């Protein structure tokens, strides 16, 4: 076998040009497949890393994926809210250790605004237990203080004390549609987290109530702007409703009974979800698209493998004489067979290895940029099990595909006898 290995190697070196092209074709197809796979697993990891330490998320009844998406990922919106007395009842439950109420629905230049209280900075955890920390400044204190995520600061060029105004609703560019007469002041900028927190403007729940004074009907009262700030500060700004509640339990063991108790709440209907479970449900939905994408890139690998086949098949005619020489010098038909199978396997192996190196190189080069620009987190690090499986799979497949030209060459060498043909 080692005798054949060095022969196969020498033969490939002899056809460097076309062999390198084939290797590159295989490498590109493998790189595409692995790139898709790494983006997929990176997205999952990124989503999975967005929330941790929160046992239950509670909101008005809706789909569990929907509740997860709008409360944690700021995607979509709530159709109903939870009333303040109900929130207080939940916060007072024996089995619940802490709660963080959040109020969503406003925006600032396309970034979502979230009303919450100071407990948010204490209890919200991401990436397997990390707490939020401040790059600059401190949590909001005054009614019109705001804390912004790192992306908001970077993309809008905001620093501490920059004034900003909020817009009613979630429109990206609807400046001037609402709260521009109630300017906020930035008191804190958070460190990057790689989560939607980076793209959020945080204010107090009372601030959300305050900017909606005069909006009680759902639309702006023409007189709303005439109410002076001092007067607003004197109002009772306790929120009437919250959008969702993050909750931590006293003991993890009660999670199912607590959830059932909340879901069957007498009075206001509620819904409690376990973040991990809802995430799994989300993956169920997206896995169809993921699988389609992976299937397409797997087909691209198949095309790469076919290029191995064509390159070897097309070389067979000019190598007919070489096969006769090998036979005459003692090679058995099996040797001819394995020589070609080995060549195919070597090309596949080298192509896959190059593809893996390519993907890891590109990720190392561009992952920080992609993460910053698009929030796509690629899983970095040393080649893992997936890479190994692809390397093994592609090598095995090329060995198998090599059997086709190998059989042809073997049969031909048997039929040719010793007469060497051109």
């Amino acid at each position: 076998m080692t005798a054949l290995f060095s022969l196969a190697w020498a033969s490939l070196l002899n056809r460097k040009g076309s062999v390198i092209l084939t290797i590159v074709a295989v490498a590109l197809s493998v790189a595409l497949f692995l790139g898709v796979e790494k983006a997929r697993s990176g997205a999952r990891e990124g989503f999975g890393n967005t929330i941790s330490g929160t046992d239950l998320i509670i909101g008005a009844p809706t789909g569990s994926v929907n509740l997860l998406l709008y409360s944690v990922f700021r995607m979509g919106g709530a159709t109903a809210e939870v009333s303040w007395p109900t929130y207080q009842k939940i916060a007072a439950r024996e089995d619940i250790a802490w709660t963080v109420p959040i109020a969503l629905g406003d925006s600032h230049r396309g970034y979502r605004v979230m009303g919450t209280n100071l407990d948010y900075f204490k209890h919200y955890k991401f990436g397997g237990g990390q707490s939020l920390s401040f790059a600059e400044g401190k949590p909001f204190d005054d009614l019109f203080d705001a804390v912004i995520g790192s992306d908001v600061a970077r993309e809008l060029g905001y620093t501490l004390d920059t004034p900003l105004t909020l817009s009613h609703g979630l429109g990206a560019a609807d400046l001037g549609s609402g709260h521009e007469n109630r300017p906020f002041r930035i008191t804190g900028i958070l460190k990057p987290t790689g989560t939607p927190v980076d793209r959020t403007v945080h204010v107090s729940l009372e601030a959300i109530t305050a900017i909606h004074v005069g909006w009680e009907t759902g639309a702006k009262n023409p007189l709303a702007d005439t109410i002076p700030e001092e007067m607003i500060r004197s109002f009772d700004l306790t929120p009437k409703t919250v959008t969702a509640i993050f909750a931590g339990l006293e003991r993890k063991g009660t999670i199912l009974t607590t959830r059932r108790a909340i879901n069957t709440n007498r009075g206001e209907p509620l819904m409690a979800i376990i973040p991990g479970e809802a995430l799994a449900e989300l993956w169920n939905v997206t896995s169809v698209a993921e699988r389609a994408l992976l299937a397409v890139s797997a087909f691209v690998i198949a095309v790469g493998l076919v290029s191995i086949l064509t390159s070897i098949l097309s070389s067979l005619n000019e190598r007919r004489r070489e096969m006769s020489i090998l036979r005459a010098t003692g090679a058995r038909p099996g040797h001819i067979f394995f020589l070609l199978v080995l060549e195919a396997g070597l090309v596949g192996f080298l192509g896959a290895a190059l593809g893996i190196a390519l993907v890891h190189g590109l990720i190392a080069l561009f992952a920080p940029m992609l993460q910053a620009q698009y929030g796509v987190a690629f899983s970095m690090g040393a080649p893992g099990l997936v890479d190994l499986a692809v390397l093994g799979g592609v090598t095995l497949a090329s060995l198998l595909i090599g059997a086709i030209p190998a059989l042809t060459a073997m049969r031909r060498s048997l039929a040719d006898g010793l007469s060497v043909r051109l």
Partner: protein
Amino acid sequence: MSGPVIDIEGLTFAWKQGPQVLDIAAFRLEAGERVFLRGPSGSGKSTLLGLIAGVLAPQAGRVRVLGEDMSALPPSRRDRLRADHVGVIFQMFNLVPYLSVTGNVLLPLRFSPARRKAAGGDAKSEAHRLLARLGLEDPSLLNRRVSDLSVGQQQRVAAARALIGAPKLIIADEPTSALDADARDRFIALLSEEVTRSGASLLFVSHDASLAPLFTRAVDLAAINRAGVRA
């Protein structure tokens, strides 16, 4: 070795669906002989060598090589016998293009442990010794691409390859037809010398009757072949 190296009896062969190419009642080649087999183009010389080398199988009759009935052996044993005991030289384009001169000479050792053993511990210097004997001592030649060699040099490399590991039988299929008369005679002289030195037997095939005196015996294929296909 006591018995004949080649012993053919009642051999017939036809390529699939073709007419009979060979029908040989008897042919023998004794140990130590250097036999010249003459026949016109298309008369079946290469076919006969294929049968002797065990690359082809006869339809009827027996081809014994070194006492083994090639037609009765399973294909793998036939291949083993060829790898261990037969050296082959072709008319031209003898060499594997992607191996160096030395690599080509060492090629049979890859497939035959017996010849590896016979070539001794240092196969490379044995290859160089054979090449030097055949007039290729220039060390710069050894690592050159084989396609850069002259045809005469290529044929001598092929002869060294056939000889390495001391096979008992060398078969040569018109190895000199691409050489001029001078180079041809020198090649045959060197080959004969090395064959004799290693104690092998030689079956040398050509259509060129003028070579006959350079061998211990000359045989006309037409005389032993009753099939007599014309080209």
